[in-house]
């Protein structure tokens, strides 16, 4: 791994994103629109809006960055650029961290904008700091990037890659405590939700929602999410092979 190559790779990925104006627009505007939709859905039930919007601020970045990364990495694999990069001094980690940092930055902008709209325009209220919400959202985005990098190894086509979303992302959304509090689920479902990283991201957000100061549980949950990021990146690195059959 080299700082110069990592930096240049990150810049290259951001440049690719910059040329795709429509993706940038979708990336930034869609979460805001969906939050506005939630606002009108729960116009008469402020506590419900506060609970759901907060969780959504964590789900959007995960979902979107998972999709973007798995497609982007798949393109590297299928277009031959990955093979070509492996004949150059680029290291696997340069590539993995390059994607992590580039899309993490994009996610930070997305999360900051969505949170700004949620707090200032739609009246979202949390006991804790909005900065912590953005921090957890970015951690979640990086989680999406890391899992997306790993999953892209199992898809041959873009059709297959998008199919991983219902497999990898939807169960996490269903079981993260958004629809049913996790401690009220059947035991085996709760057990399942205990091994899904999104559950911890959502719990961390709920901690910020309920407590004025960051709690130990919130830091622990954030630590778990970070641990899963490292694990997924390590698994992703194993799927990147310089030599292929």
């Amino acid at each position, binding site marked *: 791994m080299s700082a110069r190559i990592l930096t240049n790779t990150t810049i290259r990925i951001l440049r690719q994103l910059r040329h795709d104006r429509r993706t940038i627009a979708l990336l930034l505007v869609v979460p805001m629109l969906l939050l506005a939709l939630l606002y009108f859905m729960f116009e008469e039930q402020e506590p419900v809006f506060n609970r759901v919007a907060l969780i959504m601020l964590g789900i959007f970045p995960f979902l979107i960055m998972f999709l973007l990364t798995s497609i982007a990495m798949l393109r590297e694999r299928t277009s031959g650029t990955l*093979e070509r990069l492996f004949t*150059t001094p680029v290291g696997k980690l340069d590539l993995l961290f390059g994607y992590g940092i580039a899309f993490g930055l994009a996610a930070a902008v997305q999360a900051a904008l969505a949170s700004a709209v949620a707090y200032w325009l739609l009246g979202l209220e949390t006991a804790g700091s909005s900065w912590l919400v953005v921090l957890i959202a970015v951690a979640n985005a990086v989680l999406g990037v890391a899992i997306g990098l790993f999953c892209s190894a199992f898809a041959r086509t873009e059709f297959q890659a998008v199919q991983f979303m219902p497999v990898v992302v939807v169960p996490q959304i269903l079981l993260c405590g958004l629809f049913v509090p996790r401690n009220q689920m059947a035991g085996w479902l709760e057990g399942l939700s205990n091994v899904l990283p999104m559950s911890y991201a959502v719990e961390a957000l709920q901690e910020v929602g309920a407590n004025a100061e960051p709690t130990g549980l919130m830091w622990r949950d954030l630590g778990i999410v970070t641990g899963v990021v490292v694990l997924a990146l390590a698994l992703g690195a194993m799927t990147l092979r310089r030599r*292929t059959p």
Partner: protein
Amino acid sequence: MNYEGKLMDTAIEVTDLVIERGKREVLHGISAAIPRGEVTGLLGPSGSGKTTLMRAVVGVQRVKSGRVVVLGEPAGSPALRRQIGYLTQSPSIYPDLTVRENVRYFGSLYGLGAEEAAATIREVGLADQAGQLVATLSGGQHSRASLACALVSRPAVLVLDEPTVGQDPVLRDELWKRFRELADGGTTILISSHVMDEANRCDRLLLIRDGELIADDTPAAVKAAAGTDDLDLAFLTLVRDREGANR
């Protein structure tokens, strides 16, 4: 020639190389020595194993047995990654970046800057398209942009998989002149083609068919061995002779 002399003059040495892709064996024990500072043409019909051999030389192909040594190091070793330039058959650059951004990125991997990138873009005749997105280029321009990304680092060994496909005759001629200049400057070039008229411009030829090497010589010697002045015909004769000998 003594061993030391051979070591000095050989840039790429392939020994008993066997490669399987899927369940099929595509190279059946190829051996060849590719001299330093020359243009070696790798010729053969589509599906004969040219790309697989090239992938083995640049170190991205899993090998079943045999070995490939490049500049004294096993193919694919980290030290070689600074010395090899690889052009894949279908252009592998980023379509959502401009020509300049692509070449600068590949240059940056070797610590090179904007000047080297600009010079390489001029070399492949894309100065006017430097600011254009690769996705909007014509087929020929696209593959020249890809070529620029392989040339930018001034590698000691260039492995070019059909670099002139889809180029107009004038450009093709210019590219070949450029390859010749590079070789004269000491660059080792392995170049694949299925156009026989290009083979005459090589210093040496490797003729490959169905994963076997059927000739490894200068174009003149290949033609002399087949008793014809036409390389296409020479190729055909060599194939028939070989099939006759195997029967």
